[in-house]
């Protein structure tokens, strides 16, 4: 009995009226953990009951502590009929299991009902007493810290990065079980919420176990996702990067436990492994991707064991990259990798003793930014997609029982999770072989996602192939003392990561290489695409900007395998076009690299949506991008010629304008000789047109037509004209605004403390039944552009500011619906110093005026300035013009985050005798001008909301608006109860909306996550915080929070 959980119900407030007759409520509370339930007394006739209960004690295994949430149900006592539920609170007690994190959960929690939303609040106290358990075979992993943050959390230092951890658990979805068809929606929703909470807990515990076995103590970049596979079940899966983290304040010695594998085994380079079915997508420039045909899962192989043992010393992080011979050394590396992969696989198949699945099998890292020196070289984006048909999950262990007891996969053999595992395994292998082809031994910025429509599922994975500095890796016992200089020698930090890791004579894809514009010693590609954040040491010219490629493709409705085949046939073309768009837009902005690239392909019944977002920058080390050259196919036609000239002029103008806008003034090259491009005439004529079917023919175009370094855009039909138009219609952000999808904007260094997070979900109903691809593209592009415009409008009072971490998620929830969800944060910066990069941390002097305006929720502070000019007289009675409302079918909500900026972070509001801690939220891993002093644990919450009075609640917009506001409120309440005052790395992982306007119903599922932290304002500029300092601020922060 390794743990004792104690809970105390203190009071309630703002309860709803449950008894119409008296306008009051007789409330009592049920506290449940596992199978044990306690009840409080009934507090008669009060909307603000004071229960002041005893401490309810649960004696449980720490395994259960990790899996189960504490369930608190508030009910209205009814003498004669069944008690009515008011609502529930689920409390994840995981943060209490870490010694360093929170010690008590105490605070007001919103009481949530899936039908009515928030109904009052309840004050709860929760404590855990853990007994030390040294059992080696324990199933719990208490003490492993989880972080959503995709970098080494501030106030920690990475002693060691162990590598990739993944896990998934499967269960039947209560919503789809027969009994739920006769249950009330509330019961069904609650069953689902509870189940997912349980599954997340279990998943986290299992990942924790793997981390412990690897010798780590934390998971960074923890990414958990749900696959709602409908009839075939519910999959909760997670990936992350296992690390050993040291508290910075502990002052531990620098890690000397480095390891380099000697270079051995020369081998051929002939392993630019083509993907399985040879459907290599026609991508160039650092993108590789494959698409597997639908695979029927008749997988009979059994899962051996969940007990992942310690890694075999499988190599991978070979010494690498000395001098200019990077490419040559890549060869042996690949072979080495392959060999080990094979052995790993063999072992996996053969051993039955639960030996090893090696975490090193996949040298993947979910991190997107790294300690300086970690990243040696970056190869390019690697991605893989696969289309699968979902089968009904057959769960013998579940049988027909109604228990939600999860399967313990250790003891029960079941096919299904193995199938899902196998699917991902396949994809990861694919990614790994792509990385190898790029001469890289690791994949960073790695992420996985799915898109499901009916029984078709697209699995996607992407990352950035890279070579890492092995200093941070432990790979066995080898310890070569002289490692350091080997790595620091060849590559100056500001350009080293741009240098190609692959062999220039045997390039995995066609590319133009030049000598690095920074160090002039090594080769760099002309364009670099990555999924990671811009390394902090990278030299950038000018500022960056958000670049998006958007695409819709219609497809025929079909079933089963035919459908899956159709989809997998479409995928390569979509990727190609997205890539083309990205490339053209990048050129148009006169930039040469993309960071934070995220390509999402969503499948719907009759269409596929593709959205690629990235932040474009001009890397000083890379060559200047060429312009875009327009070419007509029939040069004879005069009017056509004229037309082309006009377009060409427009493009040139746009490029010139963008140069100015993003302040791209690369230093002029004095000598052309050093950086002379490697001649590669064929490549010169590389055409970027959208219609790949005709690209063969086009590639024979006369090269002499344009400037040598220019891309040639051929216009020969209306499609191409459309493409160019869409290229030119992307409006730049209004003056004073910048936008990016990375953590911070490259080229801006002096952030002030103004931040404003917001989430917006737009659902667009396609009205026209027979749309063309072009029409759809236009609609989709407009939808995204309008979303951006509306942000600029709402945030105009924050100018100058930058929208950071713009995270777009697209979905096709129903046949004629397109849903776009965006979460981002607007941050202010100091305009005057925008150019300089301060040596130290940005000086933080929030202009008070600015702050003043940010004090209020975004949408409410709409217009302070014009509010003043607003005549306070009445508006002359204007008959409303009905055309506007009926025309716009787009539904929208922007919920804004009540990110009140409090004057002092610690200040809690006291007004009317009560106080609520101000909790800030941001999708970034940090808050400008504020120091995170303690991580309190991961926040991972799942909510379902349903309504049967959609119209009355303001339609889908009103419904979503209030739901998202409620989700924010619940996240903040949980953080505050942990003693925190901010959430960093916040993200909305899932927002699934189903509506049935005819029945006046809608249902929405939201999954959010983030890291709860305590932070304090950086009052002084002390570079290093002493321990005492931290202790003090910590205390004061706690004071403020209570």
């Amino acid at each position, binding site marked *: 009995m390794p743990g004792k959980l104690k809970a105390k119900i203190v009071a309630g407030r703002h309860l709803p009226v449950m008894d119409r007759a008296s306008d009051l409520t007789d409330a009592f509370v049920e506290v449940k953990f596992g199978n044990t339930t306690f009840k409080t007394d009934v507090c008669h006739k009060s909307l603000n009951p004071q229960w002041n209960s005893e401490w309810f004690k649960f004696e449980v295994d720490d395994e259960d502590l990790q899996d189960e949430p504490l369930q608190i149900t508030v009910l209205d006592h009814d003498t004669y009929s069944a008690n009515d539920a008011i609502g529930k609170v689920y409390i994840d007690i995981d943060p209490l299991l870490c010694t360093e994190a929170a010690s008590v959960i105490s605070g007001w929690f919103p009481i949530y009902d899936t039908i009515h939303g928030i109904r009052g609040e309840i004050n709860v106290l929760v404590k855990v007493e853990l007994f030390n358990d040294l059992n080696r075979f324990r199933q719990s992993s208490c003490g492993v810290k989880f972080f959503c943050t995709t970098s080494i959390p501030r106030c920690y230092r990475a002693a060691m990065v162990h590598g990739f951890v993944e896990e998934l658990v499967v269960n039947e979805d209560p919503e789809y079980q027969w009994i739920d068809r006769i249950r009330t929606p509330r019961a069904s929703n609650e069953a689902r919420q509870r189940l997912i909470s349980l599954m997340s807990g279990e998943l986290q515990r299992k990942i924790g176990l793997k981390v412990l076995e690897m010798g780590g103590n934390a998971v960074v970049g923890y990414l958990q996702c749900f696959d709602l596979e409908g009839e075939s079940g519910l999959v909760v899966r997670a990936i992350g990067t296992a690390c050993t983290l040291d508290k910075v304040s502990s002052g531990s010695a620098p890690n000397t436990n480095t390891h380099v594998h000697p270079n051995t085994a020369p081998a051929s380079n002939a392993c630019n492994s083509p993907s399985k079915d040879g459907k290599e997508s026609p991508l160039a420039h650092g993108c590789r991707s494959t698409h597997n045909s639908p695979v029927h899962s008749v997988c009979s192989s059994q899962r051996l064991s969940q007990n992942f043992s310690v890694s075999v010393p499988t190599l991978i992080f070979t010494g690498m990259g000395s001098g200019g011979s990077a490419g040559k050394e890549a060869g042996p590396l690949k072979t080495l990798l392959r060999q080990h992969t094979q052995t790993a696989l063999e072992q996996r198949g053969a051993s039955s003793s639960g030996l090893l699945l090696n975490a090193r099998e996949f040298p993947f890292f979910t991190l997107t930014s790294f300690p300086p020196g970690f990243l040696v070289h970056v190869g390019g984006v690697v991605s893989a997609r696969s289309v699968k048909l979902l089968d009904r999950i057959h769960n013998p262990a579940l049988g027909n029982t109604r228990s939600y007891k999860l399967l313990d996969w250790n003891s029960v053999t079941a096919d299904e999770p193995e199938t899902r595992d196998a699917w991902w395994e396949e994809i990861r292998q694919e990614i790994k072989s792509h990385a190898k082809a790029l001469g890289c031994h690791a994949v960073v910025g790695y992420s996985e996602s799915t898109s499901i429509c009916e029984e078709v599922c697209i699995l996607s994975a992407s990352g950035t192939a890279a070579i890492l500095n092995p200093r941070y890796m432990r790979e066995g016992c080898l310890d070569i003392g002289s490692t350091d200089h080997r790595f620091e020698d060849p590559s100056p930090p500001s350009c080293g990561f741009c240098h190609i890791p692959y062999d220039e004579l045997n390039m995995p894809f066609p590319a133009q290489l030049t000598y690095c514009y920074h160090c002039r010693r090594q080769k760099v590609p002309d364009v670099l695409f990555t999924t990671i954040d811009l390394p902090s040491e990278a030299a950038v010219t000018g500022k960056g900007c958000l670049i998006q490629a958007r695409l819709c493709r219609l497809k025929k409705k079909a079933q089963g395998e035919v459908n899956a085949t159709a989809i997998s046939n479409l995928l390569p073309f979509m990727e190609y076009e997205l890539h083309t768009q990205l490339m053209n837009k990048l050129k148009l902005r006169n930039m040469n690299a993309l960071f934070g690239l995220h390509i999402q392909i969503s499948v719907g019944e009759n269409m596929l949506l593709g959205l690629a977002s990235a932040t474009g920058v001009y890397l000083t080390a890379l060559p200047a991008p060429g312009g875009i050259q327009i070419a007509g196919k029939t040069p004879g036609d005069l009017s056509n010629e004229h037309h082309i000239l006009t377009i060409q002029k427009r493009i040139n103008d746009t490029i010139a304008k963008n140069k100015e806008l993003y302040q791209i003034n690369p230093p002029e090259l004095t000598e052309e000789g050093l950086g002379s491009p490697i001649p590669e005439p064929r490549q010169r004529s590389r055409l970027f047109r959208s219609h790949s079917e005709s690209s063969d023919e086009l590639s024979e175009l006369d090269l002499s037509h344009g400037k040598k370094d220019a891309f040639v855009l051929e216009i020969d039909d209306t499609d191409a004209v459309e493409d160019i138009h869409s290229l030119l219609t992307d409006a730049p952000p209004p003056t004073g605004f910048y936008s990016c999808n990375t953590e911070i904007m490259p080229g801006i260094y002096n952030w002030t403390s103004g931040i404003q997070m917001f989430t917006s979900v737009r659902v667009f109903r396609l009205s026209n039944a027979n749309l063309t691809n072009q029409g759809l593209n236009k609609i989709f592009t407009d939808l995204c552009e309008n979303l951006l415009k509306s942000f600029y409008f709402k945030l105009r009072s924050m100018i100058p500011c930058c929208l950071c971490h713009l995270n777009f998620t697209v979905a096709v929830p129903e046949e004629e619906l397109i849903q776009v969800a965006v979460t981002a944060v607007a941050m202010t910066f100091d305009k005057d110093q925008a150019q300089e990069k301060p040596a130290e941390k940005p000086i933080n002097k929030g202009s008070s005026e600015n702050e003043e305006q940010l004090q209020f929720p975004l949408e409410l502070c709409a217009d302070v300035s*014009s509010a003043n000019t607003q005549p306070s007289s009445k508006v002359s009675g204007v008959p*409303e013009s009905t055309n506007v409302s009926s025309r716009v079918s*787009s539904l929208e909500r*922007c*919920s804004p985050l009540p990110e009140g900026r409090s004057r002092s972070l610690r200040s809690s509001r006291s007004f009317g005798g009560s106080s609520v801690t101000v909790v800030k939220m941001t999708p970034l891993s940090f808050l400008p001008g504020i120091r995170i002093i303690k991580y309190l644990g991961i926040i991972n919450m799942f909510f379902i909301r349903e309504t049967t009075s959609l119209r009355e609640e303001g339609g889908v917009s009103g419904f979503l608006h209030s739901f998202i506001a409620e989700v924010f409120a619940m996240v903040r309440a949980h953080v505050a109860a942990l003693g925190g005052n901010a959430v960093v790395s916040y993200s909305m992982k899932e927002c699934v909306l189903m509506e049935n306007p005819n029945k006046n119903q809608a249902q929405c599922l939201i999954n959010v996550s983030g890291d709860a932290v305590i932070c304090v304002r950086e009052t002084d500029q002390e570079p290093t915080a002493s321990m005492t300092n931290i202790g003090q601020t910590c205390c004061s922060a706690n004071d403020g929070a209570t």
Partner: protein
Amino acid sequence: MLLHVTMIVFCPTVNDAVKVRMEGGVLDECEASADVLLSDTMDQYRTFQMCERLLHSPAKLANQLLFQIPPHRQTVLIERYYAFDDAFVREVLGKKLSKGTKKDLDDISAKTGVTLKSCRRQFDNFKRVFKVVEELKGPLVENIRQHFLLSDKLARDYAAIVFFTNNRFETGKRKLQYLTFQDFAFCAGQLINNWTVGAVDNMVEDMDVDLDKEFLQELKELKILITDKDLLDQHKSLVCTALRGKTKAFNEMEANFKNLSRGLVNIAAKLTNTKDVRDFFIDLVEKFIEPCRSDRWTAADMKLYLTHYTNSAHILDTFKHQVVWDRYMGVIKSCIFKMYHD
């Protein structure tokens, strides 16, 4: 946000609000399209809708978890939400806040030019405040301020509205049309502070919203000032002696003294009847203000007259009801001063 509440008050629909904002030149400022403005405005309406529920019991606003609103913003929000138009309140002042009155709001809206939506909000605010404080003990203004977190000024105005509603004072008659809400609010303040039970003793288990019954009863005693012929003459001569030579309207004052005195004392004597309480203001106007106005008294004349009228009563030997007299005339005096204008 300020804009927002103002707009809710004045713009019945989102489209109207969009129009107003467009005319305000928001779009020119930041190169946005009408669509963007519309969706932004709709967002604000939605947020406000969620906020509105909280505003109904402002104390909740401080410890609710749905929105993080800094305290000073909360204050502004509440203040703006509970703000009202004098033109509108003038129409419903003293009326029963019933469903019937609410049905007439469209007429009031047409008459005052305040939009129907705004009328409803204001009406509901009055009713909500009334319901909450109606049964509460203790000082009225303080109760309102505590429950609705309003500023002192606004709390006083609401106290006036509650007081008028509770006592059903007639304010709608044509003769009273020239009086503004602020005139009435001032008078209500005087009545609350001097004529209710709470005015004498805060600890009393009674409320500020009702007039002090005992006091009203005692007022009957004042009748002696007009029924006793000697006393009336004596009073007149004292007042006239004091006024002589100090005003141009002396002759009219002398001529009208008995009439005016009868008017004021009769008002006092009748206040035990609820019906006559309702007519308090109309009586003041008919019995006192109108005669004086037709004689072209200036405000200074009025002040002079009432001061001496009140003070002279103290010198009357046989008049024993000095305390009641002062309590009565103190209020009457300041009310009339306030009400004596065009």
